[in-house]
């Protein structure tokens, strides 16, 4: 089996690893680094459950190989979670009941994070457009849209802080 040496940063920490060339980023994060907050829903790039941020942009971690990540900065839901509490987006998801089974949530949060970084005042249509690549089988999306709207408003109203 071909092994590839990679160096990258994951949630702000340096990681050096030797990975099987065929290992996906999702499996690398979950099985090698123990970051099981990233979920695998379809393994063919449609459902969006495995979405993480690479250099600030959303990617499907099931469609990338870990070996491609040399020098990259990867952020997963664990990295989006502040110590000892919830982020603005996470708190809004809880408050608006934007999750039921919770399996899509990590990917939704990554996508919402990217959206709010680019567009601090998204309309509902903007939000629906942004999350259209993330399937949720439980909520019908209504409360996810509300939660992202709420988080955006809170972030605009506060002077500092991250999503």
């Amino acid at each position: 089996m071909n092994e590839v040496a990679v160096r990258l940063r994951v949630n702000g920490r340096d990681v050096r690893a030797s990975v099987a060339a065929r290992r996906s980023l999702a499996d690398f994060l979950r099985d090698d680094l123990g970051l099981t907050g990233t979920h695998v829903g379809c393994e063919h790039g449609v459902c969006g459950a495995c979405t993480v941020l690479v250099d600030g942009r959303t990617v499907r971690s099931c469609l990338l190989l870990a070996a491609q990540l040399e020098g990259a900065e990867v952020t997963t839901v664990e990295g989006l979670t502040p110590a000892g509490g919830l982020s603005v987006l996470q708190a809004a998801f809880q408050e608006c009941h934007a999750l039921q089974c919770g399996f899509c949530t990590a990917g939704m949060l990554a996508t919402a994070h990217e959206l709010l970084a680019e567009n601090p005042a998204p309309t509902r249509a903007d939000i629906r457009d942004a999350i259209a690549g993330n399937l949720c089988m439980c909520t019908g999306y209504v409360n996810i849209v509300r939660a992202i709207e709420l988080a955006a408003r809170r972030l605009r109203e506060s002077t500092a802080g991250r999503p």
Partner: protein
Amino acid sequence: MSRWVGAPLPRKEDARLTTGRGLYLDDVARAGQLHAAMLRSPHAHARVVALDASAATRLPGVHAVLTGAEAAAASRPIRPLIPTPVPLPDWCLAVDRVRYAGEPVAAVAAVDRATAEDALERIRVEYEPLPPVVDPEAALRPDSPLLYSELGTNVLWHDVFAYGDVEGAFAGADGVLRERFAIQRYASTPLETFGAIAEYDAGLDAYTFWTNDQRPGLTLAILAESLGIPQARLRLVTPDVGGAFGNKRRPAYLLVCALLARRAGRPVKYLEDRLENLGALMHACNGVMDVELAYRADGTVVALRVRDVADEGKNLVSPTQHNLIKLGNIVNGYRIGAVAYEAYSVLTTKCPSGANRGIGKPFMCFAVERAMALLARRLAMDPAELRLRNYVRAEEMPYTTPPGAQYDSGDYPATLRRALERFDYAGWRAAQARARAEGRLLGIGIATSVEPAGTNLASYELITGRRAASGSAEAAMVRVEPDGRVRAALGDPASGQGYETVVAQIVADELGLTPADVDVERGFDSSTTPWLYLSGNYSNKFSVTDVGAVLGAARAVRDKLRRIAAHRLEVSVDDVELAEAEARVRGVPGRGLAIRELARTAYADVLGLPPGEPPGLEARHAHQNPLARPVGADRTVRSQLVFSNAAHCCLVEIDRRTGAVRLLRHVVVHDCGRELNPLIVEGMVHGSTVHGLGAALLEEFRYDESGQLLTATFMDYLKPTALDVPDIEVDRLEHPSPFTPLGAKGVGEGGSIPAPAAVANAVEDALAELGVTVRSLPLTPERVWRWLQNPEEAR
């Protein structure tokens, strides 16, 4: 008393689920665990002539290989839910014949999934293809190829039921509307796929299963029988579950893991990939319903006759479910006095059918509500008016339908009226007239439905002639721990319904605590959770059985706390009440004892207990819904127990150039009795409605004539995205059920039942100028575009 029940409390479980700290099945890692993969048949129907797995065994990293023949030698067949006229042995792997594309024939356990899949490529199977059986109507014909030649037919169940004077009602009617409707295969496709980990303890000869199976009580019975060991040596644990919707059950996969784990001497994990999930786990039955409505000229429907063919695929585990549930709800919300129902449950060489959100009722509702829409068209009546004329009325509750269902509560006309008001029905009819004048295809659809909760398993006696399981029940446990905090557990493992929050709300009210004081166990553990054969997460049953179990256990603990407090304070038990974490003497401010102090007495200072009071503060309680009855001599049965109801109004616009149906608005007014947590209830309504919208417009498991599934990925099997559906607008009425402890009724399935019919009615209304009749789903752009080009084909 009711401080927390009824509050829209955000969920406790979200603290972990929003931060990536949930524990789903694939997050569970047992020491030394291996990973399984399954070799699946490429043919819909074939004889397995030879199977050689020796090369797979030799691949480095492979620890165990299991073939169908080996599985048959090491385990017993899986017991079917209904006995068949001749035994049809159904092992966890196919033995000498495969009956759907994707049926497993062998399994491998290896150090990782990729190695296990590599090993599958080394297994050689020789198949002799047999003719597939794809269409359920063709499967009924005497010349059809057979799945089981020993059965002599593909029909697992055929029966005819008649309630009331059906012939007389048809003979005396002013008219009869006849139409044939079909429904496609679709599924709720939880985002987490199904799977299990099995561990074998050779010293104890015992197994532990970690699984996201949603019906552990029944599954434990099957595992014990098939493995030939006592249930006392089985433990089944469920972690966080990433959605279930009825789909998450396949005892065969747990058995495969168990047999591999025993061979390998290490835990074995198997989790479906999405291809396996879409192609081989569970689809809602496709099928055909021939509907005849006998009516009077004023629009009163006097009788209903239905012939219902349910395509089970290769489902021996739970066939006839869809038929029975349709029979039990066949008059929907209408006062129809005479009903005839003919059932066919038919085997075909397709993925096994099974429970899927709403089981059978979405098709029942599609057929009945489409027929009502067609009748309104025929009589030139407003479709809302026609329904209002035919509803069971509030003053008739509880109302018994001809097949025996008892509608316990609700105001169906008021529900529709509220929906019309919220939708602004009159306003949109006027807008529609203007849009039509401009050449736009704007359509309004109405559909309404009953939404039952709780399944009375006695209804299977209609099929088997004997009673094996019956009623509807669940078990729960509440324990005040020695530190005064509370732990609760429930035999129904949640898969997104927020039980950790709702159960905490119920218990907090009973014990004078807050939900924060109550930890509800994450899932199910057969070694600690109280459970019944009937336990599980199915049939909308939380409000009609689980709540009673939780309340019973909480009240037993509450009463014990009051007895201990009364003894220590030297007052009468009747004078003690629980509030704000204390047992207080009513009317005497400042006189009381903290629950924490009473817990110390109960567990540590036991000499302080009242005479004869046993130590501890724990109670288990099982609740049986009181409405369930055995089958009547006249073949009536309450197959389901407590009835919510809903009305949907849908607004669509069709693009003439592409045939695309755009959902502009979807209004839901529902009545699930008392809402225990309105935030969670509303979320369920959104989600279930969107399941119905997906079935209406997008989702279809399409098979070709050779029995190959054409839509086996999420690129082909389309789920609704955020751009496909509008904000679901929800309003509610609240008619509590007199037959549940807190007046709550079912809410998990609701939207999935009328939504497909509402969309179909709206699309037909949009196409009124063409005179098209919608007889099947999904209403994809391709189909609608064809109708626009050639309306003749759908008139």
